[in-house]
């Protein structure tokens, strides 16, 4: 069920090399978020070296890309470690690979053989109010706490979909969205081209971080799709559960990677900067800051690794992913903000990339469920587990 240590090493080395060469190259300038117009080139490289998964079997990353088709063979750990490796340099690029893999994985899991599969896809899970709560997850038509409002109605030869799927992260150039919505009393999952009539994407606008990834609101108004666009066999709950688990786990892994990058940068700066008659790293207060950041970073990584070692589609993985997302990302954020503090005023300026790391990790911390939502979820899922 899992990858050998040799293969794992290869995966991670590939991701590190990609981050060091392709991703780092976009930061050769004044812009804190890098040259965003070069992101497409960077992602093309990720596809060509097999790092980015895709529903298209002709793509190198189809099987072994992040959250690729061979996930049940490799286990979750290689994908989480690859995401962390990329996030050490840029959280936004890592998020692109994550959402691409997540949507691809849903399509793989569905077992559908697509005649002309898209290369770039994006997952659309959230409702207007956010992610579905525990009760609504089981029965999407009930207010537990809020019913699912986006709905697919069966019509002759297909479905008509109405609703809003806000805050959809996607790679630039995404062709289709994997949309979760309600079909009668059950969940449905549909592959919908973003060029469909009645479908509108609207950019969210200026935001705090992760700007390398595109963020849009998806509005569906009378979107007609054929029967074969439905990816589930009558209830998409298993697909949704896997999506949520991987989503939380992926975000936690990216956060741990951002934290690692921040701590490394802080250590380097502290060893080079002269302050108060000695090197910065010789000040006990600075040592405490860095050591605390490292501890938090390691703890965050451990939470992601723990979930990454679990089996797919079990209540345990879902709960562990939610915990990694909630607490792991909190720890990652603390590691980043403490690392930034080591830089003093320079940490707040764009020059050293520390403020970007803090912005990125804070957005991650605010995505895919508020703390209140995740705590309710962890509580409820714990009940089931016992």
């Amino acid at each position, binding site marked *: 069920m899992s990858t050998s240590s040799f293969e794992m090493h290869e995966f991670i080395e590939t991701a590190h090399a990609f981050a060091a060469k392709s991703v780092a190259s976009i930061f050769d300038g004044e812009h804190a978020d890098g040259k965003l117009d070069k992101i497409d080139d960077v992602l093309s490289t990720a596809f060509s070296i097999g790092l980015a998964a895709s529903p298209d079997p002709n793509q190198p990353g189809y099987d072994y890309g992040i959250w690729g088709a061979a996930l049940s063979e490799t286990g979750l750990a290689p994908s989480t470690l690859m995401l962390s490796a990329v996030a050490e340099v840029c959280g936004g690029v890592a998020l692109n690979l994550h959402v691409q893999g997540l949507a691809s994985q849903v399509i793989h899991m569905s077992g559908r053989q697509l005649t002309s599969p898209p290369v770039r896809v994006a997952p659309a899970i*959230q409702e207007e109010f956010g992610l579905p709560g525990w009760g609504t997850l089981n029965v999407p038509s009930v207010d537990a706490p809020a019913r699912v409002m986006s709905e697919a109605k069966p019509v002759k030869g297909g479905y008509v979909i109405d609703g809003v799927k806000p805050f959809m992260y996607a790679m630039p150039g995404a062709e289709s969205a994997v949309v979760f919505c309600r079909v009668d009393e059950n969940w449905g999952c549909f592959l919908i081209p973003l060029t469909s009539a009645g479908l509108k994407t*609207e950019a969210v606008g*200026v*935001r705090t971080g992760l700007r390398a990834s595109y963020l849009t609101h998806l509005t569906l108004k009378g979107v007609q799709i054929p029967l074969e666009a439905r990816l589930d066999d009558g209830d998409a709950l298993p697909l949704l559960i896997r999506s949520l688990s991987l989503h939380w786990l992926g975000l936690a892994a990216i956060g741990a990677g951002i934290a690692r990058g921040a701590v490394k940068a802080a250590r380097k700066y502290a060893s080079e900067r002269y302050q*108060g008659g000695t090197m910065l790293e010789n000040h006990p207060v600075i040592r405490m800051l860095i050591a605390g950041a490292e501890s938090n970073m390691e703890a965050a990584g451990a939470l992601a690794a723990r979930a990454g070692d679990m089996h797919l589609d079990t209540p345990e993985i879902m709960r562990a992913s939610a915990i990694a997302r909630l607490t792991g990302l909190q720890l990652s954020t603390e590691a980043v903000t403490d690392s930034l503090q080591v830089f003093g005023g320079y940490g707040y300026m764009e020059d050293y990339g520390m403020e970007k790391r803090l912005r990125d990790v804070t957005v991650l911390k*605010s995505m895919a469920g508020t703390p209140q939502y995740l705590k309710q979820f962890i509580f409820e899922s714990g009940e089931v587990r016992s």
Partner: protein
Amino acid sequence: MKPADQTTRERQATSIIPGMGPEQTARTTKIRADIHETIEADPTLKKRIAKLAMPGASRDLNFFGKLLVDCGERTIWERDTATLPWGCRYWRRKARDFARQYIRPDALAADLDPHNYDPKPILSAAAKAGFQTAMMPFPIGTAEPFAYLRAAVMQPAVIAEEFATECGGIGLLLLAHHLGCAPIMLSGHIPSMVRHLVPLYQRLKKGAPETMAFAITEPGAGSDVEETEGGAQAHLVTTAKRAKGGFILNGRKCFISGGGYAQKVTLYAKLDGEGIESWTCFIVDKNMPGFSVGRLEHKMGQRASDAAELILEDVFVPKENAVGKLRSGWANNRNVLNYSRPCVGAMALGHGRGAFERALEFCRRTYLGPKRLIDYQDIQYTLSDMAMSLWSARAMIWHSCAQLLRCNQAASATAKVIASDTAFKVCNQAIEIMGDHGYVHANSVERLWRDSRLTQIYEGTNQINRLSLIEFLWEAEFNK
């Protein structure tokens, strides 16, 4: 899908907030009606709930018991304001009105595009309203004298909170000016006040869009110059060499808030051939030959106010521009920090309060299923925690201000640390409680979050400030 241009203001203006469309509004109207019906359907329950709440329950107390119960429906802001001396109450109310009228409309644009933001109109409006001269009491300045004598920095502090609630960058633009004036005031040097401060204040009262900046940080010495042991070993490059009729200044200062715009700078330099013990404060006019503004930093937040590098190349400064005695600069600098740290704490508090108020509004108008977010107990718990944190930080700030005419180092440092850490925590909570909406620029919370992070760094990092408390209380409190 077309790639989104994430930097244009048009997109920010057109960005939608899901849940606020006409369909959702119709739905929530119906939900409201349902909730109302549920309560209305059980009049007994309604009556009992009303009676059990404190205003109702207190009716069963006797006359004296009733007198001892506070059932007033007043906000924290109103309650706190009522505890202040008259002068501070006046400035707090006036500052809130000013911030809402002048700062709020400019906040988003000034943050997005600070290089094209023209600060003159708001500086002029603030000066005319008396905010830019509130560091000194009437008749020199505009601070109310009786409140000033009770707590010298209380009036600027309450103003700072209100300004920062709307925008950290514009707030800093307006408030850093006081920091620039403070060395003159705290030098106790009457000739400097008469020569420099009085004419400036007269111009400001007429609405001149002028500011002063305060320059201590150097490229190789940031936190060093904000703490004694660091100062003793600081690597300083800015020097003043005696010349006929004055001094020749050379060196560089960096990260100077408002330094790019300010017409004058109170700037510290060591005397040629001496150490930091010789630090002397000089008033440098930006029109003096050899003075130039270098790099304007790209900051994470508080972007409407510049952080500038100041370059001094053989700048001749007349001896009349030396503030106070020669070599009095180090003490003067430390005392300026003691006076400014409560105000920085108040600014941080403002950022936190701004984020809290916006998150609260979001929770009021956003529905999760049949109920508003604010009607859920777990949300109430978080909001309550945020309100308590802010309230306690304000208490510390106001306590640190209430040290009669003087500000003590320990109380000032504590106020700054507690308030800035609290503000950053509260801003994080505000972003989290709003979920994805929290990090959207148009909703302002993320801007205040970015603004708040700087308050943990400038005016001495929070680590340096903790050491300041130890230093100040070492003999009295720790080393017994």
